[in-house]
């Protein structure tokens, strides 16, 4: 099984974090659905040419975060937890909102102005999905 994970030495982040992030990304985009079997620690170590102990650390932290489950003697699997992908998506949302907030700050927008713009965009999406319903009471800025 080829995971396609790639460890970069030009990346300042430690190798175990790179492994964690790439696995989380695989799961978040749905390449690795719940129940999907991960490569064994030794197989992934051989494939990425990263020490067994580093891959083990990445798996342990993913396990602790509830992202994967390890069944003794059977291997590691993407957690079945329904909230998992939701949680990953929430994390992704926070990342993107943080980037938007940063851009807004640089443009000189206040937090309220930023929130109003977001509300407006969300409302526009709502209206598209349910055109027959009346628009919300929120004012657009």
């Amino acid at each position: 099984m080829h995971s396609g994970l790639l460890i970069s030495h030009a990346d300042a982040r430690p190798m175990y974090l790179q492994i964690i992030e790439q696995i989380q990304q695989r799961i978040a985009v749905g390449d690795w659905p719940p129940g999907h079997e991960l490569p064994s620690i030794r197989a992934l170590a051989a494939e990425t040419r990263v020490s067994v102990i580093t891959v083990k650390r990445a798996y342990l932290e993913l396990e602790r975060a509830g992202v994967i489950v390890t069944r003794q003697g059977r291997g590691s699997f993407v957690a079945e937890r329904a909230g998992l992908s939701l949680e990953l998506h929430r994390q992704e949302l926070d990342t993107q909102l943080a980037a938007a907030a940063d851009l807004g700050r640089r443009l000189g927008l206040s937090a309220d102005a930023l929130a109003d713009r977001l509300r407006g965009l969300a409302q526009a999406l709502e209206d598209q999905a349910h055109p027959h319903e009346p628009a919300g009471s929120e004012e657009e800025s």
Partner: protein
Amino acid sequence: MNEPLIQLAGVCKAYRFFSLTDVHLRLEAGQVMGLVGPNGAGKTTMIRLLMGMVRQDRGEVRVLGHPIPEGQALAKQDIGFASEEMRLYGQATLGWHMRLVRDMRASWDEGYAAHLLCHFNLHPDQRVRELSHGERVKAMLLLALAPRPRLLLLDEPTTGLDPVARHELLVELMDVVRDDRRAILFSSHHTQDVEQISDVITFLDRGRIVESRDKESFVDRWRRVFLDLPAGTAVPALPGAVSVTTTGRAAVVTTREYSPAVEEMCARARVTVRDVQRLTLEEIFVATVTSQREEQQR
């Protein structure tokens, strides 16, 4: 099965200008151990002790369960050894050497040997004396790997290899530990290789083991802490500080015992922590050796 593949206890070996002192070491099955240390630290001496090429003055050496040097013949049945010190016959071809090792080692894997020939870009008809330095290193590695031994002892295996050959070697070494009954001990000055593939790092300096621990915790505890000092404030004494450099109101502290408590201590001393950076094994190596030498000079 649970016995370590390498076990050294209280091992000493004295030479006129150098001595290896009180070495304790374990290498478990399934592990890769990287041996690092400056020139003359004792890395080669340690590998020679493991091979029974020299006898320890004191202490116990066990390899694959056999006492060394007494049981070296049995141990070597399952060891792959590659070192600068190993001599190949200049007149003979690589193919001749391959047949020689194949006849001695029942475990020789012909298919794997062919795979290594191809990946190391070697030809069996080449005479050893016509090989470049790097090719000779690759030839020795091929002879060490092809019998698929349980234990690989490699002294500076990446020295003299071009980047492609080094990459191929790392691929082969990581392939070895797909099998959790096998293990590798290798010495190297190429700290990036050591940091990448080792499970355990053993740090040797002037004949003593400075540290031998799992790579993750070895590297993880080191940090470089960048501080902004308010006027008239001295650099706070931080745990495990190995070096402190102050320029005006900026200070950089390198510590080997970093924990979040360090930042709390700085806050209490009203010192601003501007940045906290991790260190590469190479930087840890230099910081350790430099600080020990400075300590000795005091």
